């Protein structure tokens, strides 16, 4: 018999909620606590816990007594960890951004302490910018770099900004980028070019790339670039989501 009636699906979701409650608690939860948290009877909670335990999604811990998440969760997470799908996840998004902006768009990946464009779609205009796939650029110059740099861990920001010509000003600018969620630049890497970029986060919650739009300053004016920023942020958040990342984290940190 296949029980996938609405009630069956609701039960499956309750099992999911048990996992979420344990994750949120950050400590072992007892049977009583779990039954109360997901609003089911003790026998039902016990049955669901048994099912989850049989697949290693939770384990019973003895000291202190209660249930914690198990390595079944880690094994599922490994599938995401192992997946290198930044480019595949980004392809439709890049296409959409080029259509909306009419300018050159690129996906720039963080590689050690630099950024490298790994996918690029050129503007249909005859005068257009090109970053060139595979060419490394610094993180402390250009919107695509700053959109990454601003979201790195503090100690890395410290280290990477210390070597720039004006560390103080750069750090202030990065604070602003972090607050806004996007970066803008003009002629910092290529004369005559303006760019706007937003970060892409991966499953770790850390920044792994940026989504960048770039055009000639005459056509891609500051006003045009700023009004495009929310779209860039939204499309970058969509890629983050496909990578198993959490764009909500960005705002929280």
């Amino acid at each position, binding site marked *: *018999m*296949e*029980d*996938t009636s609405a*009630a*069956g*699906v609701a*039960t*499956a*979701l*309750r*099992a*999911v909620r048990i*996992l979420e409650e*344990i*994750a*949120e608690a*950050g400590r072992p939860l007892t049977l009583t606590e779990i039954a109360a948290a997901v*609003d*089911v*009877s003790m026998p*039902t909670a016990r*049955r*669901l816990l*048994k*099912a*989850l335990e*049989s*697949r290693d999604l939770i*384990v*019973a811990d*003895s*000291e202190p007594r209660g249930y*914690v*998440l*198990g*390595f079944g*969760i*880690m*094994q*599922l*997470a*490994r*599938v*995401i*960890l192992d*997946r290198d*799908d930044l480019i*595949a*996840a980004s392809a*439709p998004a890049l296409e959409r951004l080029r259509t909306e902006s009419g300018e050159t768009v690129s996906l720039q990946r963080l590689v050690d302490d630099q950024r490298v464009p790994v996918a690029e779609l050129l503007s249909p205009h005859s005068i257009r910018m090109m970053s060139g796939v595979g060419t490394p650029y610094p993180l402390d110059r250009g919107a695509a770099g700053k959109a990454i740099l601003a979201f790195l*861990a503090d100690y890395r920001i410290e280290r990477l900004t210390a070597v720039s010509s004006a560390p103080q000003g750069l750090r202030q600018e990065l604070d602003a980028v972090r607050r806004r969620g996007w970066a803008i630049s003009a002629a910092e890497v290529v004369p005559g070019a303006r760019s706007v970029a937003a970060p892409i986060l991966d*499953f*770790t*919650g850390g920044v792994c790339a940026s989504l960048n739009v770039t055009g000639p300053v005459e056509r891609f004016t500051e006003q045009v670039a700023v009004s495009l920023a929310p779209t860039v942020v939204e499309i970058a958040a969509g890629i983050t*989501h*496909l990578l*198993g*990342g*959490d764009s909500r984290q960005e705002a929280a940190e």
Partner: protein
Amino acid sequence: MNEPIPPQGAQTALRAVSILESFTLENPSLSLSEVSEAVGLAPSTVHRLLRALQSRDLVVVNEASKKYVLGVGVMRLARSILNKNGLTLLARPGMERLRTATSETVSLQIVLGERRVAIAELVSPHAIQMSSGIGEPYPIHLGSAGKSMLAFFPAKKRFRFVTASADPAALQLDLEGVRKRGYAVSAGEVVSGAAAIAAPVFDAEGAVFACINVTGPAERFSTDLVQETAKELLAVTTALSADLAAGASSNP
């Protein structure tokens, strides 16, 4: 209290789990028909369950390719393991220092139930390198990583692992040595040809819950290197334990 749940309800929960498990390292991205083939259920059934899983972000569908992948919901759950007490972030600078100093693979491991698992890893730049793989469970009583933690377990819990091992007397002796030195050294206990050195990390209450492990091919692990690495490793783990205690007291 909600409506009573029929006994077969747990069955549906298990089907949903099977769907999640159909995404593997080899096939991380699947179409509806591929999932239904993998779990042996009708596409309509699978579709309903996928929709439910999607509502909790456990799977995400790529609109362009119509393929499903595991989503941020899984990582949210995993992050509660990966980033317990902010551990991964706090440990990273020290791990980087150790990898630079040793050029070997450095990992951060935690106790999960009855086993241990790596939650972060910086791989050696050498062509021949060790990698334990994030998320892969290993026994606690084998390997330096496990022993560095086991040695500092409360007596009762430690006793349970020791008595269950193949040679309790030898393990007991080994663990006493670890407690005296403050770190564990092993060779070929989990992977033949591999050597490792590990030291424990303690939480704010002083309970061991993680360790940092440095591992590489045994022939590169000379006695000198072990001595040298032990010093650096203990400096890193001691500082990390202090950071965890400070973090816990600054934001309760």
